[in-house]
């Protein structure tokens, strides 16, 4: 896998995540009790033996940098290769916004050129999964493909989220690709991860960025369907597509199923994240906890049901949390009741307050808010 370069694209749209992505890029959105969404993509790459990872930074990446630092938690603080941060240009020639992976790649073309790897794995980070990229590269080589697109049979896709549907023939060749089709029988959805030769990537970037195109997949790969050998690799493990508030909430709740927890955190290696050295969870006498994911540093004396608690949350006696996601260091006053609520980091809920949303529309309290 020393021959595979990893590129993580953070230009995916996160607007539909609302408050959760107001101050942070999608990759930095907290997920699963102790992670940020980028942890899954980064860990999958490293677990597959990839040692050179470039991260295309876009907008609001402060919290992301604070999280990944020098890449040490992923063993990417290397003398050779390692982790490279690739910021987008502050302004483009045409003076437009910079939410474009083609412009960003063009801006950082030197990194791509000097990387020694022959193949590149290009990935967004909105798909939470545990995947074996070594198997993907083997498939790519076996099929003598120009581009291999990773897809998954997705039945839990949100109707309101952007997606790319693929039509794949029996031999694995992609015969059609469609962006957000209204009528589509295929449930084969691109995970926005693809493998290709680095020189092909360089050619595509050079050609299409020079023609004012913006997105690598839709503007540079889709139009070449007929002339390139594009194959689809089916990933059969759990995939959580995070592209709207509702999907964020529902995919979070998926983690409460032991089979999903097992699949996502243990199948092809473990998921690394920034270490906080929090003590184990303290359950005091009288605590009632069921069907919940609890991160270290929490102390629980109240009731927690069907919920996710991030690190360092204190649930006092009489506090009731149901069907909710409570992020790091939330302070909950006596008698607080939460139901279908997402609390961002450092939120304070004062004594006696009762907050409730709906499973299809969870209430989100933004970072550091006081209610």
């Amino acid at each position: 896998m020393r021959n595979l370069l990893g590129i993580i694209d953070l230009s995916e749209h996160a607007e539909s995540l609302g408050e959760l992505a107001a101050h942070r890029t999608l990759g930095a959105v907290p997920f699963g009790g102790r992670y940020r969404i980028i942890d899954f993509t980064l860990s999958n790459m490293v677990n597959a033996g990839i040692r050179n990872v470039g991260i295309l930074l876009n907008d609001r990446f402060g919290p992301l940098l604070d999280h990944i630092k020098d890449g040490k938690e992923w063993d990417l603080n290397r003398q050779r290769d390692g982790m490279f941060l690739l910021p987008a240009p502050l302004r483009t020639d045409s003076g437009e916004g910079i939410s474009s992976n083609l412009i960003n790649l063009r801006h950082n073309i030197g990194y791509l050129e000097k990387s020694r790897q022959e193949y590149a794995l290009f990935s967004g980070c909105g798909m939470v999964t545990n995947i074996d990229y070594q198997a993907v590269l083997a498939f790519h080589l076996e099929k003598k493909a120009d581009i291999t697109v990773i897809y998954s049979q997705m039945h839990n896709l949100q109707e309101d989220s952007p997606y790319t549907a693929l039509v794949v023939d029996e031999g694995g060749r992609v015969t059609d690709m469609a962006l957000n089709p209204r009528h589509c029988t295929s449930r084969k959805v691109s995970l926005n991860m693809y493998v290709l030769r680095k020189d092909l990537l360089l050619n595509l970037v050079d050609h299409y960025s020079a023609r004012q195109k913006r997105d690598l997949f839709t503007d540079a790969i889709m139009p070449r369907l007929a002339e390139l050998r594009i194959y689809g690799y089916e990933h059969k493990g759990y995939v959580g597509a995070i592209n709207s508030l509702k999907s964020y909430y529902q995919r979070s709740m998926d983690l409460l199923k032991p089979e999903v927890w097992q699949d996502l955190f243990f199948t092809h290696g473990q998921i690394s994240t920034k270490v906080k050295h929090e003590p184990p969870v303290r359950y005091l006498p009288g605590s009632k906890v069921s069907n919940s994911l609890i991160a270290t540093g929490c102390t629980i004396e109240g009731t927690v049901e069907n919920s996710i608690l991030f690190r360092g949350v204190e649930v006092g006696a009489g506090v009731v949390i149901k069907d909710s996601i409570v992020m790091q260091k939330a302070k909950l006053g006596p008698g607080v009741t939460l139901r279908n609520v997402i609390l961002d980091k450092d939120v304070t809920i004062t004594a006696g307050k009762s907050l409730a949303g709906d499973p299809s529309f969870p209430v989100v309290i933004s970072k550091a808010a006081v209610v």
Partner: protein
Amino acid sequence: MQKKEVVAMLLAGGQGSRLGILTKKLAKPAVPFGGKYRIIDFTLSNCSNSGIDTVGVLTQYRPMTLNAYIGIGSSWDLDRAGGGVSVLPPYMREQGGEWYKGTANAVYQNIDFIEQYDPEYVLILSGDHIYKMDYSKMLSYHKSKGAVATIAVIPVPWEETHRFGVMKTDDTGRITEFQEKPKVAKSNLASMGVYVFDWQVLRAYLEADEADPDSNNDFGKNIIPNMLAAGEPMYAYAFKEYWKDVGTVDSLWEANMDLLAKDPELKLNEAGWKIFSLNQTLPPQLVGPEADVQGSLLGDGCLVLGKVHRSVIFTGAQIAKGAEVTESVIMPGVKIGEGATVHKAIIGENTIVEAGAKIGVPPRPGEKADIVNENGITVIEDNVCVPHSMRIVQGTVLSVAEWPAFPEEWIS
């Protein structure tokens, strides 16, 4: 090498034979503690939090787990450009070499290591105690008293004084008398095995001690009494917080149970005094729909589908549906099968307790059981499998080597 004011020498070579099968394959400081830690984390974190950045860890007995665990010390922020953590096993010299003969000899053999940093002071520590202590305060005390040696002391119950080095002090805190593990103690101020020495003075005593063929080469038995006899200014530094020697099965179990108090004496979540440990890269614990967890401490990566009361469950352990764990210490990676019960037990790392097994049950009337632990704590070795429906009577200390001798009726 850059000069350091103080170098810490952490004694981590002991076998910890009183922990029996729990230290069969690893040194005592590497024994898991408190749901995610190993015992040595407390001392290493104390160093890091006290601003001591040069630490020699003296290893000898079964060091592999400890070596792998400490690595280059990054988990404790001790991976430093100058100093940091150094693991120091005994080594060969031109004239041969030898094992560490005692605590004092272990430091003597590493005089060259210490001299590299040309320190004013040396801090001697043990790797087998659970406590949070700011060594920088002890060092200030040492300096303010003009001492050449300062010993951290804590009052212990009089009936336990025979296990410790105890000392009498005058009104100023100066040590007037020292007794090592006395039959009749004159004081209940016990040494915690934490010493600050003026390095050049200690060096001279270590060299003299080495030249004495009758010496045990031990700090408590030789160095401290010799210094006192010579009239050196030695002071006791009183420590009043939580401190526990976890050198026995009983004390290890108790110290784990101490963490379960509603307001535990030893707080693991104190801001500014974190206890660092090697991260295991595991997801948050998952507590299932029918789980019942009360009065317990659980680490990352646990999967709990059954009942856990008044227990410490370490990183990555799994408790199946219908299983019941009470008053127990379940070490990392242990799997407790469906319907199994575990009461007042310590289960070693990665051991599997199969469905329906019963650990820590009272003996049946007339049943002959090989009870080793008088307090009824059952201990199961690491990396073994307790078969389906097996009964293990309380107070049994179970090592796989002894299994064939087990009576048939235990499997019911």
